[in-house]
């Protein structure tokens, strides 16, 4: 395929993200990468489960967590996953404007999530003096949830970069795979959060 066909295709295929070999490679590599990420988070979850009762006589999950805030955060992130699906739907129909719009909404929801998370951490630190260093539970909590937050931040920067970089030239066979794997990444972050919601917060309150 000549470079011109990649950047200015005469006709966009239905799955533009997998139309080129580079696209196929990226698609597959990203799934593998998510497999590795799964082990990463599994290790963090394992560590957290081993340490979440090791509170050194200080703050416990029960007295810290409030499910209201976490519920709102969960809704925000779940919705953002849905909006990124809309974005990919429009990508497959080659409607660049609508794709950008839905990606923008996704980013806004992600930012709101991140804002709440930062608020939550600040709250714990100032109101409860519960920090990364207070107990093994503290270390494990901030590491697990913080790693997820870091992923959210990275995902936001990534999507915004792609949106700005391509805003003028629209969709082509070179950038379609990039948009697509960014959205895969976003779904993955969402799935991890569902586990954090269950294992950290729900089990912390009830368990």
């Amino acid at each position: 395929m000549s470079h011109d066909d990649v950047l200015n295709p005469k006709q966009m295929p239905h799955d533009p993200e997998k139309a080129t070999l580079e696209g196929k490679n990226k698609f597959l590599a990203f799934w593998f990468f998510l497999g590795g990420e799964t082990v990463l988070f599994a290790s963090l979850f394992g560590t957290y489960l081993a340490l979440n009762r090791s509170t050194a006589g200080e703050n416990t999950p029960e007295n810290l967590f409030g499910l209201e805030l976490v519920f709102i955060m969960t809704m925000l992130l779940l919705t953002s996953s849905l909006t990124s699906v809309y974005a990919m739907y429009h990508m497959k129909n080659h409607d660049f404007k609508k794709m950008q719009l839905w990606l923008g909404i996704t980013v806004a929801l992600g930012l709101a999530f991140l804002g709440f998370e930062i608020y939550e951490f600040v709250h714990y630190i100032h109101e409860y003096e519960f920090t990364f260093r207070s107990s093994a539970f503290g270390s494990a909590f901030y590491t697990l949830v913080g790693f997820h937050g870091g992923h959210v931040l990275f995902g936001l920067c990534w999507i915004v970069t792609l949106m700005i970089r391509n805003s003028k030239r629209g969709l082509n066979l070179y950038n379609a795979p990039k948009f697509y794997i960014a959205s895969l990444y976003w779904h993955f972050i969402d799935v991890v959060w569902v586990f954090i919601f269950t294992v950290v917060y729900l089990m912390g309150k009830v368990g």
Partner: protein
Amino acid sequence: MSTALAQNRGLGAMIWDYLTTVDHKKIAHLYLVAGGFFFLIGGLEAMLIRIQLMKPDNDFISAGLYNEMITMHGTTMIFLAAMPLIFALMNAVVPLQIGARDVAFPFLNSLGFWLFLFGGVILNVSWFTGGAPDAGWTNYAPLSTVSPGHGVDYYVMGLQISGAGTLIGGINFLVTIVNMRAPGMTYMRMPLFTWAVFVTSALILFAFPALTVGLFLMMFDRMFGSVFFDTAAGGNAIIWEHLFWIFGHPEVYILILPLFGAFSDIFSTFSKKRLFGYSAMVFATVLIGFLGFMVWAHHMFTVGMGPIANSIFAVATMAIAVPTGIKIFNWMFTMWGGNIKMTAAMLWSVAFIPSFTIGGMTGVMLAAAAADYQYHDTYFVVGHFHYVIVGGVVFGLFAALHYWWPKMFGKVLNEKLGKLAFWPFFIGFHLTFFIQHFLGLMGMPRRYWVFLEGQGLEAGNLISTIGAFLMAIGTVIFLVNVVYTSVKAKKVSGDPWDGRTLEWSIPSPPPHYNFTQTPLVRGLDPLWVEKSEGKKGMTPAEPLGDIHMPNASILPFLISLGLFIAGFGFIYQVDNKAWLILVFLGMGLTLGSMLTRSLKDDLGHHIHKEELEKDLEKGAGE
């Protein structure tokens, strides 16, 4: 590019070429040189250890230095010597064996190399800045968390960075093997080496993240005041052991499987037979990879996990001996009745079989949990893992280098010198490590600085040290061979061994686009299929046309350099927050380079048909 051409353009141009290359064959050279260099450093460290243990109550090196020496020896050999040398082979051979023009992600391939190299350099800088890591290559907490100075911090940063490189490499080879195979190269026609690399890459993908997390926790505890491993604050030091071995046991199979693959190709080539039990070999490889994840706790029998957990892990561990045994027999049946040529590569391979089998047997002994209470942390374990790692991995590397050297450099390593290097190494290896089993059974613990007089350990230790010197002599002869060959030997054709697989169907060294026309694969051992029908080479699967190739880039180097700089910032910000400047500078460079990569289109370039025709006339495509 040929060496002559490179010399014309000067040394600077050549260095720039290697700094920016994304060609898998050149990246193989980089891995080979860097891995070889670290192998020599690790070997030197081993010699110092053996000199210290030559006689009782020796004071050749101090106790503290001894701890640094064993830590750096193990860490260097596993992460900075064996792994990169394996990556050198993977890069040099896999794309050729599947009929591809490059790996799936040439840019990431280069990134993986530079990350590994900078990680390795960080680790070794510690020697000059106040002391190397000294908590063993396993770095158990709390020994590691309370180790004074910055040694262990160097361990954490160095392995974190080089580990990222390895992970990237693993993903790259997975995708390469799934997506880039030539027409007709089905899974069950792939050479065993490619199969082994495939399984190994999957192991890397699923094992390394556990180490990543372990290293992060260790980093947080040592540098940022968290208390994961601090029992006083409710932490739990055993978590490190689990994370380390969830990575660590698959890691030993990451090391050995590619060499299993190489041996399979070598036995078949030099016996002039197709591999005996090809599908059983593939199945055994996959099974070993799978079981490799189920057995990590056999390193922790004495931790106190309880009889049930110990029994389960003991049985799972013993089960691995079954697919391993299948392989051993299939290699022997491959040779059986074959037309055997005892080249240097074959010599190393044949020597591997009994040596490795002994290591497997002691492995099964260790896997008997109750008995392991006796063996654990003694020289018996040291004997075991050196039998598998030296007798398997190192013998395999020598064999594979002899076998593929002509493909990488166009010249056959001198056979006489090759065999001359083999014998002292082989004899030295058994002298060094066989006796260590008995030293262990007599109660000599591992990782002790001295042993006492009059406990019957003198003779064994002396023999062991003599053996180590013989191995050093063998290694030096091999190096002499490399120099001698590159100066004296003549260029050979593309197929010096009468090979069976695709890499032997193209010139040595191959043109940078590998295959002028993608070959059509018509069976297992594709080149042999063509040869047995009287054809000279492969049938092309496509007409001669333009070839798409990736562009060179300096960004992988810069990304890694940034992490290297940031690494020092992280290590020293503990003493003085001003060092955080380095973190910001380094991360700025890394993230900036990544951003550049994202913003700038890189579509590669085309080699035009006319150029290919010219190359063909010059004989490059014979």
